[in-house]
């Protein structure tokens, strides 16, 4: 009986200690999160909503990556031009299959071209 009481006492003490530490940890995390929160933007009470044009300009002015709109446009044009050049030159990324490959050519075509290019042999040779 005495052992049982001692056991219960130790269980309550151990679990209490664990939960107490967990609670402390939770509290610490909350504190860190609170300290690390983004600074609240101060909005003037009497500020009028922006004009649609101004809002559009603001949106176009900087992208997600913080790039200037002109820079984004320049990159876009350069990318499109490069792609067009690669396409005109039939670069590997633009090809359906390897240049000149007979991998997908039918046996009909393969055999036919062989016949077309066969050297002429005279009678009896």
């Amino acid at each position, binding site marked *: 009986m005495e052992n049982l009481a001692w056991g219960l006492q130790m269980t309550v003490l151990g679990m209490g200690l664990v939960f107490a530490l967990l609670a402390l940890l939770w509290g610490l995390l909350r504190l860190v999160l609170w300290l690390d929160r983004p600074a609240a933007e101060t909005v003037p009470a009497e500020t009028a909503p922006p004009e649609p044009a101004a809002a559009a300009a603001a949106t176009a002015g900087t992208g997600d990556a913080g790039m200037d709109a002109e820079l984004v446009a320049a990159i876009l044009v350069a990318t499109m031009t490069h792609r*067009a*050049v*690669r*396409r*005109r*030159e*039939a*670069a*590997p990324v*633009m*090809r*359906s*299959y*390897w*240049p*000149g*490959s*007979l991998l997908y*050519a*039918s046996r*009909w*075509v393969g*055999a*036919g*071209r062989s*016949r*077309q*290019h*066969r050297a*002429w042999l005279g009678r009896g040779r």
Partner: protein
Amino acid sequence: MEAKTNDHLQTLREMRSRAVLGGGRKRIEQQHARGKFTARERLALLLDEGTFQEFGALATHQVNEFGLDRQRYPGDGIVTGFGKVSGRRVAVFAQDFTVLGGSFSEVQAQKISRIQDLAIESGIPIIGLNDSGGARIQEGVRSLAAYGEVFVRNVMASGVIPQISLILGPCAGGAVYSPALTDFVVMAGDSTMFLTGPDVIKAVTGEQVTAQTLGGADVHTGRSGVAHLAAPTELAGLALVKRLLSYLPQNNNEDPPQIRPEDPPGRMDDALNALIPNDENQPYDMRDAITAIFDADGFLEIQPAFAANAVVGFVRLDGYPIGVVANQPAFMSGALNIDASDKIARFIRTCDAYNLPIVTFVDCPGFLPGVDQEYAGVIRHGAKIIYAYCEATVPKISIVTRKAMGGAYVAMSSKQMRTDLAFAWPTAQIAVMGAEPAVRLLYRDEVAGASDPAARTRELVAEYREKFFNPYRAADVGQIDEVIEPRETRPRLVRALEVLRTKVQQNPPKKHGLSPT
């Protein structure tokens, strides 16, 4: 032991460094001052990065006369090797003007011949970058014999592997024949080509002419037809070669590279239905039809300035490269003359050699009449077109857009000349000759006996036109397979070529034909 190996490596590295410098830093600076790249810089611009593998970098000449023993440069004025262009294996050689003016020597010939042999055996295209003052006079007859070595390989490679010559500087004397024997000649910048230079011409005939007006890019792309394309700068010339290569296969057994199509195969351009003017004598630009029908941004016109009454070039249809031949009604009404015949015949044979289907657009009132043309042999030149079409075994499709008169109708891929499919637009006029001359011949007596000959002539002309100036009579007798709306042309061609892609046709065995010359 290790020290000795290091010595050997050091020697090799020093020799390679010398080879890379060509004729030396001073010569390289002079080349740059003229606004030109060196041979190695050109190859670096042409080939994919890190793909060039050089051969014969350390070869030098063995001539001691005329002070040449003091002028030995590794490589002897030419850089040869293998590389890749847009991922495709190619053989290349580039003459180095910084070494003895790029003069053509026996060693140069050996190096070029070697790379030509390897290219033929490997079945890969060969690209030559020419920039040479001509034969190396100090070597005497050796350098002349060297030309023959290269020429014979040019001919053996002809129609087997694509050969492209890019002229980037002077190309004179016997040296011009090697590019002339290749499939395509592209001239860039202030390059020149001539057999005899201005000084010799002045001495022999007294004519005074500059190098540019004698053999510049304008002359050879516009008047002589020696060059197929021109570019304002070396950089543009190298880009043009890359683009040209994109339409050609690796060799005559293979197909040209197909790219992923972005233009819908079923696209119909309504503007085509309004392309042909109501007035039949009013010109229109056939290139508008070509660009509207084929894949966007895919038209590369060959010899655009030479014989502008004919249009030839490469296009893509559903991503597949195709050769297109057309009359140009906007120039000389599209009539065929000697130059146009040569241009068309040569292009057809090129397409046939490299397995490119041929689509022909016909709007031709006939062969150009004239004493000059007859005296200069328009018959044999015109016969070249017929020979080329009849000989070609690739898929051939013709589309008559407007006039198809007499011999020109027959010559321009008519159904009976082994054309696979013949289409016509409703505006087509397929007849033996024009209405007025036909009436003069057919109704001479009737017109002469009429009370008002002029009025009777007008009536008969109108009658003749109604009867013959349409595609339906030709369709009746099977000379035209189908009369189609102009806007339908693209999907029709896509479907037709889808079927004809596996076409195989064999000509009778022969050593070679005797094409009219």
